[in-house]
């Protein structure tokens, strides 16, 4: 899948067909960019705004794309930077209200379809993500949510791969404990 998107986008870029290139990238990586933004920002409308801005910026930068990385890591790097900007701004404005209230412990009663339980886990996960340090949150989201490899994350964050691995594992363990404390025992 990733290889197909890369090949399609690369072929379009070689034809200088920037529109087809962007369409391929949006189709192939739009969800990943949104998921990254949503997990980092935990605010739906802001995540959507940053996703769109990411692709607008990517379109403007396509003629200068140097092929030194995959389109995927390049796009996710742009998205990550825009998310950091948006998060900084929100912090400055003290509008960090999302997840500020701990969610109620998830009730163990399993209603049909497990929908209620899944919503409970997602809400608790948002709260627990907010409790992580910025570095741990970023590492675990890049690794798990958008499935970048450790070397890719290492290059993006300019951090040693072993340090990235440690951050991911530390974050996973913190998430597990936090979710347990919230009554979510995965």
């Amino acid at each position, binding site marked *: 899948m990733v290889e197909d998107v890369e090949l399609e986008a690369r072929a379009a870029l070689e034809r200088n067909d920037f529109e087809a290139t962007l369409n391929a990238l949006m189709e192939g990586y739009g969800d990943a960019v949104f998921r990254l933004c949503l997990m980092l920002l935990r605010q*739906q409308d802001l995540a959507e705004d940053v996703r769109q801005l990411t692709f607008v910026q990517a379109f*403007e930068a396509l003629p200068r794309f140097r092929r030194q990385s995959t389109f995927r890591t390049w796009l996710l790097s742009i998205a990550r930077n825009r998310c950091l900007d948006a998060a900084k701004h929100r912090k400055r404005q003290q509008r960090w209200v999302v997840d500020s209230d701990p969610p109620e412990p998830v009730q163990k009663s399993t209603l049909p379809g497990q929908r209620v339980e899944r919503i409970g886990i997602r809400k608790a996960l948002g709260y627990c993500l907010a409790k992580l340090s910025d570095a741990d949150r970023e590492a675990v989201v890049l690794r798990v949510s958008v499935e970048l490899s450790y070397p890719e994350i290492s290059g993006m964050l300019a951090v040693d791969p072993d340090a990235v691995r440690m951050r991911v594992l530390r974050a996973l363990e913190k998430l597990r404990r936090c979710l347990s404390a919230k009554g979510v025992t995965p």
Partner: protein
Amino acid sequence: MSECRRYLEEFAEREHDAEARSHLASCRECAAAHRAHEAIFRALRESDSGDERWQESVWQRIDQSGSGRLGGRLRGLALVAAALIALVGVAWLFTAGPEGPPELTARVLKGDAVRRGESAHPGDSLRISAKGVGPSEARVRLYRDGVLYWGCGDPEPCTRVGDVLQVTVPMETVGRYEAALFWSSDPIPPSTGELDRDAGLALEAGAGFELHAPIDVR
């Protein structure tokens, strides 16, 4: 749990799943730890897909910037618009005297400081000034990504001192902001909420129209 760390690492890397799963089948402790993390992985990978029409919105933003698919067509339209503006400007010169068309400026403010360049960040403000509006009716409007973001009179009036119209508007969110000035001796058409349509209506009504260079808030 610590004995199972290697298997969790491997699962996180997803590069040795077969070997890890083989171990998990025989190790109850690791299997429990694995299940716990697997559920977290699932939750971390699960999200809504956002706005269904987000790709269209991306193209709209690109088209509005003038560098996109419609760039050539927009450039053509821009030339036509420029010609119309020039005609309106000339007509205005004949009817309004020798002062020339108003001058529209927009400066990004971070606190009280003026920021150089044309990029800005959410929370910065934009100080828009229109000099030389004379006795004409004048409206300053600010558009974000082509959609009306702020306009004189709603809810605050612009400050008008002599023939200078000035307003400071906070730019709360990312996007491309464009300040526009409309002026006319006749009533200015109310905003439709969209830059392109407002400009067209103003030109049709014989009003003056000036658009400042876009300011990207990132």
